C-alpha cells in the first residue's frame, strides 16, 4: 500500500486523515476519559437505583434536603459552566483578559459550589446521617448520598485545581487555547454529572 492509499484508508476510518477525527490526541484522550468517567458515575447511580427499587420505600428528599438550596447549587454550577465556555471562547479569540476574567469567575463558582456542599454535608451529618445509618429509616440512604455526592465533590475539587493551574499559566502568559479548552471539557463534564445526580438523587 503506498502512502496515498494509506492516507485514504486513514481518512475513511477516522474522518481526519493522519489525525483521528481531525483533532489532537490530547483532546481525543480527554473525550475518551470523559466517556469512561461518565460510566463510573452511571455505575454509582445504577447501584443507587437498585438499592432504592429493592428497598421499596425511600426517604422523601424534600424532607431531608432544602430543595431551594440544592437548586442554588445547581444554578451555581450551570453558571460556572457559562463562564468556562466564555473562557474557552476568549482563548480561541486570543483575548487574554477574557480568559483571565472568566477562568477566575469559573473558579469562584466552583469554590462556591464546594462551600455549599460542605454546608449541606455538615447539616446532614449534624442531623445524624452516617454511611451506615441515618434518622430517615433506610440505612443505605446515607451511603448513597455520601458516596455519590462525595465522588462528584472530588471531581469539583480536581476541576478547581486544574483551573487554578490554567489561571496561573494565563497570568504568566503561558496558556494555550487548547489547554483552556481541555480544562473546559473537564469542567463541563463535572456540570454534566451534576445534572443527573440532581435529577435522580434529589428529584425522583
Amino acid at each position, binding site marked *: 500500500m503506498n502512502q496515498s492509499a494509506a492516507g485514504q484508508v486513514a481518512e475513511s476510518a*477516522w*474522518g*481526519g486523515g493522519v489525525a483521528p*477525527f*481531525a*483533532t489532537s490526541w490530547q483532546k*481525543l484522550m480527554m*473525550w475518551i476519559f*470523559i*466517556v469512561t468517567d*461518565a*460510566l463510573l458515575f*452511571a*455505575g454509582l*447511580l*445504577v*447501584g443507587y*437505583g*437498585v*438499592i*432504592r*427499587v*429493592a*428497598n*421499596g420505600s425511600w426517604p422523601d428528599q*424534600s424532607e431531608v434536603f432544602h*430543595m431551594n438550596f440544592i*437548586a442554588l447549587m*445547581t*444554578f451555581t454550577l*450551570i*453558571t460556572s*459552566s*457559562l463562564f*468556562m*465556555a*466564555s473562557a*474557552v*471562547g476568549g482563548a*480561541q*479569540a486570543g483575548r487574554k483578559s477574557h480568559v483571565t476574567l472568566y477562568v477566575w469567575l469559573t473558579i469562584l463558582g466552583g469554590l462556591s459550589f464546594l462551600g455549599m456542599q460542605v454546608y449541606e454535608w455538615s447539616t446532614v451529618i449534624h442531623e445524624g446521617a452516617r454511611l451506615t445509618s441515618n434518622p430517615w429509616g433506610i440505612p443505605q440512604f446515607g451511603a448513597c448520598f455520601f458516596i455519590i455526592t462525595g465522588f462528584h465533590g472530588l471531581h469539583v475539587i480536581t476541576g478547581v485545581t486544574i483551573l487554578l493551574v490554567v489561571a496561573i499559566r494565563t497570568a504568566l502568559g503561558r496558556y494555550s487555547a487548547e489547554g483552556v*479548552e481541555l480544562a*473546559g*471539557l473537564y469542567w*463541563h*463534564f463535572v*456540570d*454534566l454529572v451534576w*445534572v*443527573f445526580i*440532581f*435529577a*435522580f438523587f*434529589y*428529584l*425522583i
Partner: protein
Amino acid sequence: MTADSHGYGIYWAIWGVLLVLTFMMIFIGEANLGYVAKAFLLLLGAAAKATLIIFYFMHLRLEKAGLAVIVMVGIFLTGTLMFALPAYDGSQIFQNLLYR
C-alpha cells in the same frame, strides 16, 4: 473547532435554556404525578440538559461526526443499558420482598 465560538451570545442563550429546564424539572419533581411519569419526564429533562451541555458548551457539534457518535453512544446508549438492566433486576428483588 473555532468556527462560531468567539461570540458569547450563544452561551448565554444555552445558559438561559438550562435554567428554564432546571426550574421545569424542580416543578415536575414536586408535582403530584405518578412515579413512572415523574421519572420519565425527569430523565427526559436531564437528557435534554446533557445534550445542550455536550453539544454547545463542550462544542461537540463542531467536531467530526465520528467523534460525536463515539461520545454519544458511549455515554447515552451504555448508560441507558446500565440503567435498564439493573432496574429490571431491582424490580425483581422488590417483587420477591413483597410476596415472600
